[in-house]
């Protein structure tokens, strides 16, 4: 952690305030001119601040949408349509919020994959990584409950399927499900509590984001070379160098985001969600939003019980095993700092890991495709293979690779190539 610099503003009133609450010093030392940052961060390092920006956009647009939305099964669907048709700028605010969720996930997924590629989770950044995973889990819960609010067919049946997962828990599962529902199916009480929690959780996320940034301050940013900062020559101040780079990235990101808001507002959603919820009719196929598809594929891929072969004795039913696999697929990432046994952080110097990293990305793409298809034909098999590979990557390949892989020599310092070239 870099030395903490105290700011002394020239303005007397500001100085008086700063002595009592050093908020300028906080900004100065965390994202300001007093924040030494590795000089070699590439554009993959933009996505942290982009995710933060998307959180702010989601909170702002969500708060104003909540001024018009009614969480009641009788009018929820109509109240959302009223927002789009009648409320001033509702046509802008609702697609901003709905597509904002997608773009929040895009930013976060790239941010996580960047961490996987460059070994950002390794010591001393384990807690930083785990706080990020907590944010990710909270985001998933928030996004799921938000998708229920428009009370269309996908909202209703998505909520039904996901809450039914909890019934797989032995002994208490059914009771937990009833508790979540507040009744005997997804209904008005469920909608109201989902709305309440959907409003609350983003502020919890905001709190964890502050911890995440704090942890980043303590352990400092990683960098594409994955080596420690050795001297001041390796660093540049966060402001203005990375504030301007982040701002540029935001501009580009916003262009794509704006394209979806203005020209394809429903491209990422499912058309069935424009049919009001009907508890008597299940849609042809229930598909979650794209950002949940890999996990949905993992859930569906398990279709066999675990028990003693040749008998009726079952230890774990297929349903429970699927649920366990889905949650485990994320929870095992908490153990990643210890599952990865390699001393080298960056995949740039790990020629074999680099291949496996891209295999993992391909596997996630495969699972995304499988999750969006009906489970028939080749897809169940592909899903099972994809799931198996996903777990093998983290539980088998990562630990072994750390011992076996012949890594490339690390550079002496971040500044070295630059300084040498200048000489």
């Amino acid at each position: 952690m870099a030395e903490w610099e105290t700011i002394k503003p020239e303005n007397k009133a500001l100085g008086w305030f700063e002595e009592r609450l050093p908020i300028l010093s906080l900004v100065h030392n965390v994202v300001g001119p007093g924040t030494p940052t590795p000089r070699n961060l590439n554009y993959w390092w933009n996505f942290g601040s982009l995710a933060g920006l998307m959180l702010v956009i989601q909170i702002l647009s969500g708060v104003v949408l909540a001024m018009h939305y009614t969480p009641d099964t009788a009018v929820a669907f109509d109240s959302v349509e009223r927002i789009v048709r009648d409320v001033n700028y509702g046509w802008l605010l609702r697609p901003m919020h709905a597509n904002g969720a997608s773009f929040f996930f895009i930013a976060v997924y790239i941010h996580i994959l960047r961490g996987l590629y460059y070994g950002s989770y390794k010591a001393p950044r384990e807690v930083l990584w785990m706080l990020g995973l907590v944010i990710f889990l909270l985001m998933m819960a928030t996004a799921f409950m938000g998708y229920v609010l428009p009370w269309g067919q996908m909202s209703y049946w998505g909520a039904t399927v996901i809450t039914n997962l909890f019934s797989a828990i032995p002994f208490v599962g059914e009771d937990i499900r009833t508790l979540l529902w507040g009744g005997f199916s997804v209904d008005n009480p469920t909608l109201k509590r989902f709305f309440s929690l959907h409003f609350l959780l983003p502020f919890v996320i905001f709190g964890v984001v502050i911890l995440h940034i704090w942890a980043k301050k303590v352990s400092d940013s990683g960098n594409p070379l994955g080596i420690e900062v050795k001297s001041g020559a390796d660093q540049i101040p966060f402001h203005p160098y990375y504030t301007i780079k982040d701002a540029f990235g935001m501009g580009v990101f916003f262009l794509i985001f704006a394209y979806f808001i203005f020209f394809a507002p429903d491209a990422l959603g499912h058309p069935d969600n424009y049919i009001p919820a009907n508890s008597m009719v299940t849609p042809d196929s229930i598909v979650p939003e794209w950002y949940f598809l890999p996990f949905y594929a993992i859930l569906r891929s398990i279709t066999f019980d675990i028990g003693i072969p040749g008998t009726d004795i079952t230890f774990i039913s297929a349903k429970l095993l699927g649920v366990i696999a889905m949650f485990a697929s994320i929870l095992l990432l908490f153990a990643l700092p210890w599952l990865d046994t390699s001393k080298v952080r960056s995949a740039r110097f790990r020629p074999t890991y680099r291949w496996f990293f891209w295999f993992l990305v391909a596997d996630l793409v495969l699972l995304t495709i499988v999750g969006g298809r009906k489970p028939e034909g080749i897809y169940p098999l592909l899903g099972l293979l994809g799931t198996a590979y996903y777990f093998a990557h983290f539980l088998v390949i990562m630990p072994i690779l750390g011992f076996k892989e012949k890594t490339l020599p690390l550079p002496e310092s971040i500044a070295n190539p630059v300084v040498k070239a200048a000489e």
Partner: protein
Amino acid sequence: MSTKEQTIHGEDGATRRDMLHTTAAVTAGVGGILALWPFVDQMNPAADTLALATVEVDLSSIGEGEAIIVKWQGKPIFIRHRTATEIAEARAVTMDQLIDKETDEERIHAGHEQWLIMIGICTHLGCVPLGTKDGDEKGEYGGWFCPCHGSHYDTAGRIRKGPAPRNLDLPDYAFVSDTRIKIG
């Protein structure tokens, strides 16, 4: 080679970089402010709310001496079919007796003297004055009486006594026919 030597200075010492900084900051600033507008404007009345901005009322069922209350934009509208006596009473009042000086003629549509149409909200603190329903207290001047703080209105809805500063406000309305009005 230092970057300083490459810096292009204008005649007044401003650099190309200053220009770019200012342009970028102004563009981002103006864009940011414009982007905030939808977040504010969404709080203004929505299209469906505005669509309810006018109501039509059929007057034919209101007998002489009777009055009704209709709702317009969420507010009560008093519609009173005044008797000849009430009109005469209102017109007999001289200006120096009034707090908010308005003639009866200014408060009705010419040719429809019997119809007094007002926003039924006391100009003091927004209560709805009594005097429309049968049996309501009508105040000392035979018009309306506000029970909240004791304002008395006459048969032209003018404030005569009490804390209210103005006569009862008038909505915009027009006679569609002799027995039908459109408010708003």
